[in-house]
């Protein structure tokens, strides 16, 4: 059984099919990088995994829990699949450490003291221990995104979903976020990453998925795919990225 299993998963918005029937398994420990032109369905595919989008047809199972289940099942999936957003989405009324403590307290029912311990350790890990009492507005974009990663990790997920985590950042701030993600990957975290960072895909990814118009066109080893693009479409796309 795969960690994440797409079974004829289909997503439509009205008459428009964003994701054509998709069969795909992502195994525990994999770092799957999803790339593709805008509007190809990358983010939708990711958001279907933690049910921020409901699928239109087929099934999608996360750790053998179906996204079609009752709301209790949906919440179980979300506890297991942490999400990092393009726009960080930190709670502006909470400090960095309060943001990270939020999940353990509200989603996992931990005590404040436990949550504080978890949060402090995670902020340390993402290199923001000395910023823990800052509000999001007092942090740079890169720092905010690292807090957001810590916040997602604090819920103790089995999978981490990244939705273009560096797209809203200035180029010089991207590396600090990518480095944290790389560390996570080395520790064996299962990750699904939607990104335009080809160097990250090559260096950290264990698998590369190329999406185009709602189809997974290529699925394979990142180094192989990127060094010898198997299709004209893919070659075109790579040229436009650089």
């Amino acid at each position: 059984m795969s960690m994440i299993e797409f079974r004829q998963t289909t997503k439509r918005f009205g008459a428009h099919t964003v994701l054509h029937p998709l069969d795909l398994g992502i195994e525990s420990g994999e770092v799957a990088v999803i790339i593709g032109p805008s509007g190809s369905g990358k983010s939708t595919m990711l958001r279907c995994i933690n049910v921020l989008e409901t699928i239109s047809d087929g099934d999608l199972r996360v750790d053998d829990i179906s996204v079609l289940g009752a709301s209790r099942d949906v919440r179980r999936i979300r506890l297991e699949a942490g999400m990092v957003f393009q726009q960080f989405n930190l709670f502006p009324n909470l400090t960095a450490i309060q943001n990270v403590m939020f999940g353990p307290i509200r989603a996992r029912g931990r005590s404040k003291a436990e949550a504080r311990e978890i949060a402090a350790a995670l902020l340390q890990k993402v290199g923001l221990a000395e910023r823990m009492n800052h509000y999001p507005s007092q942090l740079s974009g890169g720092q905010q995104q690292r807090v957001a990663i810590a916040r997602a990790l604090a819920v103790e997920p089995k999978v981490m979903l990244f939705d273009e985590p560096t797209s809203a950042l200035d180029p010089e701030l991207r590396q600090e976020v990518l480095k944290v993600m790389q560390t996570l990957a080395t520790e064996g975290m299962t990750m699904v990453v939607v990104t335009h960072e080809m160097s990250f895909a090559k260096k950290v990814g264990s698998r590369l998925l190329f999406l185009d118009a709602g189809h997974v066109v290529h699925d394979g080893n990142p180094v192989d795919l990127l060094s010898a693009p198997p299709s004209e479409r893919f070659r075109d796309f790579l040229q436009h990225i650089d």
Partner: protein
Amino acid sequence: MSFDWTAITAALPELLEGLELTILIAIAGLIGGTIVGVLTAIGLNYGNWLVAAPAQAYVAFIRGTPIVVQVMFVYFALPIMLGIRLSSTSAAIITLIVNSGAYTAEIVRGALDSVPVGLREAGLAMGLSFRKVLAYVIAPIAFRRALPAMGNQVVAVVKDTSIFLVIGVGELTRRGQEIMSENFRAVEIWTAVALIYLVVISLLAFSLRVIERRSRLP
């Protein structure tokens, strides 16, 4: 005609008694109106149409009719329809709760709407139920966004209590009118009444500004 200060000092005890009732009605109206308003706003924003449609009708009905008509309806028509007795003060409080609730609902609805969708998604993505997201993610931010408009609503409610003189509630304005009809010192009495409102409302406005400043985000 000279300004007669003794007319004011003589009237003051009775005016302050009126003020007491004004404040009582205003506080009851504000607390009740806020509860009704928040619930209505949640129904408007997140309820299905069975909840949202009546909420919409309620807001439209209240905003589309004068408060004087509303209080006349509650005091004179409602008791006949329901076969009950209602004191003028109760009628005033009920009217104010229902009236302020509708305006508060619009304020809260706007505040809830202004909270970025991404924050809601961040809360949901952590495995929280929507109720928890509403309580712990959306509400704290919506509260801050609602404060300036709620300040206006608080002031409006205090002033709206003066309308209840039409059903004989002995609040501040009514007391002023009664005293004036006895001594005919219109200038003194209405000056005094106006100043009392001004002081109370200025104090309120000031405390609201303090709350606003304290809850401001860095």
